[in-house]
């Protein structure tokens, strides 16, 4: 019994030890699996996980470049940058947005429009990391927030560079403005393959030189490798690839001339373009009313935006290149040149001007009742005889007119380096054919040619086309592509890249014909319709007034300015160049609903030329603000 128990015990012991051995083996096997896993992870896959750990801990933070300056031809700074504090919210890190903004409003001034703008930003920009609630904090506000920042998870103060336009509204259509990079910009940048360069950039040029020379101005985004923790907070900077600032863009524009022009223009609507005939460089480009690009800098507030967009005067439209107007009598010098060139008239041929021209049972009236009597080519320009040009147009025919005028660039985009240039209309049978659907309207009627001669009818040109044509005439037929930018300058390398004047073509004109028309235009300002505006001018100048009808007058109806609604009054036009020999400036002025060309547009041209030729600054305008001089000095440093 006792022996059996002992044997039993021994067997049990053996069995137990066997099981312990099995367990030990299982332990070794399991640890072997772990060891294999460690070998796999830490030896074979080490580099993979090493990279992942680096990726985890290193975040690439873009460093936005300084945007290039925009300067005028004399080095005046038109657009520059200043650094300011913004208060930015990371929407994904904020639990209760409304409450957070309310609490922020106790520390910094947050206006209802800031809230509206912010809400709009949140709605418009998907996947945005951070969005500004307030820009341009005062030092005091920045300090107050900094002291309370622990209370605000997901709200940060950032130092950012803002665009600033020291001249405000002056030249706004030239410089354009900055706006947030929107969906359309993103798509375009992605297509161009430059989206990466816009990481960290919130604002992009929208219109004007800011948009057209975006690639020059923007610069190259730099990158910082920052060690971050799991919450995405930066711990330290590991490496830095500096950003490269954008190029400075120097315009052909003369900012002081621009200022003089805008002051002279006042609060009226219209446009002015002044061009350097020998280069095509634009000296002044005015579109009124304008806007203040500074208000766009930090995201325009919706109220002002709506105001700009709903304004009947369309301040955002650049009338100088996208507005099209009938040229009125400013067309006559070109018609006269055509007549000479095509042999339809000689300087000596005369007509009798009874004050009207009858054609096809219809009477075309001269603006002067009773007419100008005996009129030769010279006088036709000086006194602006309509009858002379009714006849001339009829004699030339529409095909000859259109064929000749095409050379001057009428009815074609000039190719200026600004966006949204309009085509205008140079009327011709082909144009009419294409323009209308109705077969009855497609046919060109000879009667329609008559008013073409005095710049009415279907004629419709942009101010830049008119100025370009004036420049071409003044220079004896050289047509240059108008342009805003003279050169770009890389401030870092000192490299300057000049944009050479681009002559598009040379119109074949006989020098004596050109000279005759120029002399006739000089006659306009000496003894003709422009004489009063240019009384006492001490430089030689040629010009031509123009009055363009906005509404068609019925036959025999007399135009009475007082009876016509202000917006239906005639446009006032003036084209000019100076001096007569080797002209340095050619310009076109259009004052919408300004009435007679001699009254509204010509004095503006006079003021501009007085400044440009003599340096005479009109009363009521400082020669230059101290700020300008400071900027100038800074630039030359």
């Amino acid at each position: 019994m006792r022996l059996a128990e002992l044997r039993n015990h021994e067997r049990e012991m053996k069995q137990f030890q066997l099981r312990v051995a099995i367990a030990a083996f299982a332990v070794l096997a399991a640890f072997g699996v772990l060891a294999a896993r460690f070998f796999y992870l830490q030896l074979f896959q080490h580099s993979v996980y090493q990279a992942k750990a680096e990726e985890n801990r290193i975040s690439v933070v873009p460093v936005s470049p300084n945007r290039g300056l925009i300067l005028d031809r004399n080095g005046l700074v038109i657009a520059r940058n200043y650094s300011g504090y913004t208060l930015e919210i990371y929407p994904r890190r904020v639990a209760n947005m409304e409450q957070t903004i309310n609490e922020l409003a106790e520390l910094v001034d947050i206006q209802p429009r800031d809230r509206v703008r912010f809400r709009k930003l949140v709605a418009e920009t998907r996947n945005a990391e951070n969005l500004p609630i307030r820009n341009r904090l005062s030092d005091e506000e920045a300090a107050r927030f900094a002291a309370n920042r622990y209370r605000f998870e997901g709200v940060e103060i950032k130092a950012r560079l803002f665009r600033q336009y020291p001249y405000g509204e002056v030249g706004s259509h030239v410089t354009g403005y900055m706006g947030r990079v929107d969906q359309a910009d993103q798509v375009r940048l992605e297509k161009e393959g430059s989206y990466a360069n816009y990481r960290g950039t919130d604002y992009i040029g929208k219109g004007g030189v800011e948009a057209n020379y975006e690639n020059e101005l923007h610069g190259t985004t730099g990158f910082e490798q920052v060690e971050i923790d799991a919450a995405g907070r930066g711990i330290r900077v590991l490496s830095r690839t500096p950003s490269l600032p954008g190029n400075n863009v120097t315009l052909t524009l003369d900012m002081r001339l621009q200022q003089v022009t805008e002051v002279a223009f006042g609060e009226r609507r219209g446009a002015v373009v002044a061009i350097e005939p020998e280069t095509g460089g634009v000296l002044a480009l005015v579109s009124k009313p304008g806007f203040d690009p500074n208000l766009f800098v930090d995201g325009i507030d919706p109220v002002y935006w709506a105001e700009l967009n709903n304004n009947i005067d369309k301040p955002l439209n650049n009338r100088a290149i996208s507005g099209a107007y009938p040229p009125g009598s400013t067309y006559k010098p070109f018609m006269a040149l055509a007549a000479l060139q095509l042999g339809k008239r000689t300087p000596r041929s005369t007509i009798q001007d009874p004050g009207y021209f009858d054609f096809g049972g219809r009477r075309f009236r001269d603006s002067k009742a009773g007419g100008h009597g005996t009129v030769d080519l010279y006088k036709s320009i000086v006194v602006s005889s309509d009858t002379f040009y009714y006849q001339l147009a009829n004699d030339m025919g529409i095909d000859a007119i259109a064929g000749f005028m095409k050379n001057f660039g009428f009815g074609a985009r000039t190719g200026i380096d600004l966006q949204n240039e309009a085509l205008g209309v140079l009327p011709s049978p082909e144009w009419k054919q294409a323009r209308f659907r109705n077969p009855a309207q497609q046919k060109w009627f000879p009667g329609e040619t008559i008013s073409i001669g005095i710049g009415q009818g279907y004629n419709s040109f942009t101010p830049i086309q008119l100025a370009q044509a004036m420049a071409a005439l003044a220079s004896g037929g050289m047509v240059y592509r108008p342009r805003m930018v003279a050169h770009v300058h890389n401030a870092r390398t000192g490299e300057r890249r000049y944009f050479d004047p681009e002559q598009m073509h040379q119109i074949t004109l006989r020098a004596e014909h050109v000279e005759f028309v120029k002399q006739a235009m000089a006659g306009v300002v000496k003894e003709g319709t422009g004489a009063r505006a240019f009384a006492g001018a001490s430089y030689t100048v040629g010009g031509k007034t123009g009055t363009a009808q906005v509404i068609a007058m019925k036959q025999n109806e007399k135009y009475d300015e007082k009876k016509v609604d202000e917006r239906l009054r005639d446009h006032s036009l003036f084209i000019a160049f100076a001096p007569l020999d080797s002209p340095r400036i050619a310009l076109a002025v259009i004052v919408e609903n300004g009435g007679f060309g001699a009254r509204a547009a010509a004095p503006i041209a006079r003021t501009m030329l007085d400044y440009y030729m003599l340096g005479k600054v009109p009363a009521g305008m400082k020669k230059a603000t101290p700020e300008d001089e400071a900027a100038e000095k800074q630039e030359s440093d």
Partner: protein
Amino acid sequence: MELAPLPPLRRIGMRLAEGIDSTLLVLILILSMLGLAALFSASYESPSRVLAQLANLGVALVAMWLVAQVSPQTLMRFAVPAYAIGVALLIAVALFGDVANGARRWLHIGVTRFQPSEMMKLALPLMLAWYFHKNESTLRLGNFAVAGVLLIVPVALILRQPDLGTAALVATVGFCVIFFAGISWRVLGLLGGLGLAALPLAWGFMHDYQRRRILTLIDPTTDPLGAGYHIIQSTIAVGSGGPWGKGWLNGTQAHLEFIPERHTDFIFAVFSEEFGLVGNLVLLTLYSMLIARGLVIAGTAATVFARLLAASISLMFFTYAFVNMGMVSGILPVVGVPLPFLSYGGTALLTLFIGTGILMSVQRHRQLVQS
């Protein structure tokens, strides 16, 4: 010749060393020191947590020493009451327990909170070992069925909390006792087959988060910021450690807070990132030695109770280590199992040291040379 009386200090020293197995002591102290080093790094070199863990260690060492002084025969008397109280407390938890992180695990006892499931890790093997010891000579299949019920009751209660990690651990330890008690291979195979068949059923009873954890293990990338985050980040930590590690205090994953629970369940990620493959192999070796020592003690134990207890406690150490390291290195689902002797936390440390104390007690009262 009279023996000179020993100097008092020496005497105290000898009394303290009595019943202490130096192999076990050295092993668990080395492991604890490694834990403190990793903990220091995981706390960003701030000593407060390390000091707290040192205090935990002190308490645990005292507990170990006390247990080591008690003979297995005395321990056997605690088996039934410990088990009964444990089950009662688990029921109490289910009825009145505190909810933390969506699970009802804690019980308020006066000033402190207490996790009865932790107590079960030792109470269950004690109970089962006692049960098999009592029925040593008349062991039948019915006894194993009773043992199975004794195991399932607390495991089911812990699963209900829900605490998958502890339940698995307790179940494994209990199973070890049954296995070492000599359950026949045929029954074992049958149970295994039934278990496999019941897996889909178990899936149906699982909580959503438990299912998610298992799914994330299969493909962590499905939820990189949610449930998969732990596995992805800890695997990166282990892998980026490389053969030699990034060096103590140089782990980027841990120091930049990419590793969640880096003081407790994921301390192995911190350790592994900084000490690399070499460190891991050292750790595996230390655990193997500890388990081997435990199994040797079990093999020479005097009674059924003692040997079953010693063997199952040894395998408890193994289960802890294997599940934890497997989870951190991405081959096992994420369950709340600490790394034995390294993870921060007083309760787990106490359990482990008491377990070691039991091993020492068994070793001290081992079967002497057979007469």
